């Protein structure tokens, strides 16, 4: 059973940026692309317990702030070592100016 969870206002995230969203003991990273599309992944890097919301968003890639590992935040695919394991991703929809994540 999945639910659409209200994560934030669409305007809470700058273009080409990321914010942290915590829910029910879990943590996520919510992204807004240059094209104004929204995406959501697990919050922590798969290499170590470092939150990606402090990282750099650039060209559909999130770079981990600790070791510069990179993921494609649209698919969760690991792009650059030291990350080898893909990130979990979650469906996102925007309604009424709010960003909802399917969990």
């Amino acid at each position, binding site marked *: 059973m999945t639910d659409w969870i209200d994560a934030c206002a669409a305007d809470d995230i700058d273009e080409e*940026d990321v914010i942290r969203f915590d829910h029910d003991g879990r943590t996520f990273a919510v992204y807004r692309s240059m094209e104004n599309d929204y995406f959501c992944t697990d919050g922590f890097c798969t*290499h*170590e*317990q470092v939150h990606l919301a*402090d*990282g*750099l968003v*650039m060209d559909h890639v999130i*770079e981990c*702030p*600790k*070791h*510069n590992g*990179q993921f494609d935040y649209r698919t969760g695919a690991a792009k*650059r*070592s*030291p990350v*080898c394991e893909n990130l979990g991703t979650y469906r996102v929809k925007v309604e009424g100016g709010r960003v909802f994540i399917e969990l």
Partner: protein
Amino acid sequence: MTQRDYSLLGPDAKRAVKAGLAAADWYHTDIPRKDMKALMKREDRTAIRDTVILFGAMAVFAAIGIWLWPSWWSAPFWLAYGVLYGSAMDSRWHECGHGTAFRTGKYNDWVYQIASFCMVRNPVTWRWSHARHHTDTIIVGRDPEIVAMRPPALFRIVLNFFGIVDGLTGWQRMLVNASGRLDPEEATYVPESEQPRVIRIARIWTAIYAATIALALAMQSILPLMLIGLPRLYGAWHHVLTGVLQHAGLAENVIDHRLNSRTVYMNRISRFIYWNMNFHVEHHMFPMVPYHRLPQLHERIKHDLPAPNRSIWQAYREVLPILRRQLGYHDDFLTRALPRTAQPYRVDLHQSALGEAETTSDGTPKAPAVPAH
């Protein structure tokens, strides 16, 4: 007096994990997200300029060195070539390994591969080694890149000014890897999935060195080795001179880079060779900031950091006495005072790590009591 075991497989490694020092949550100076994004922003222009200058200068110095060979008049040009090969490549290896020097990923990868070859550091192994260094900076038993251990191996450091220990270790590891094996310590931080790449690259390098040696034999001259291989030895001095200052004499087993890393103001030539890694507290605290923005980052957060050393010379005047004291008393280290504008050190996090360190009223830990010196 505490005996330390810097091996990644020894008792201190287990102790660090048990004490929560492995992959811990480190102190960061607060910077608003907007400012941090501006500091992290990538560009190609500066690194392309610096790389053209670097490789252009190497080509010119090598050409003149070959032209004047075997006259002693060629020596200054080999020394200049050697510093760019055996020292500037250390910082290029470092920055491009982080992937921050260029905006374009493949530029970082190209320079990283060349620099890794020059420094005889397997680009796969050392990417993982350096990731561990950033996760567990100067945590005994966890950090594979501690240069000045306790007691400090001063003779080893002196030898490394000529690349002797690190260069020979690099070539030895290259041959081990080329034979299809990894060093047991390497295997602790290189994932199995990456190990075939370690071996493949080591085999390519071995072939390059074999061809260079064969050419030298055919020419009955060391000239080919003056270009490839030997500069790792005769040009290493600058990267050791600057690199020793990064952490030597400072605290171990703490989780605040202000306690275990050092920022040193340096001249423009050293900063070009070193690619601004003299801003080392800043680099460790925010490794995603490119080298060319570290001076800006320094200005932004210096209110929260210990005062930087004013020069290489002044830094060594601070470091050498403490290293000498550590020969006799391993628990001695420097604790650097914070300005009044800084957030105090978290004594609750560091008291056990700093041994019996006393603290001042503002939370600044003092070095533990040491024998008279």
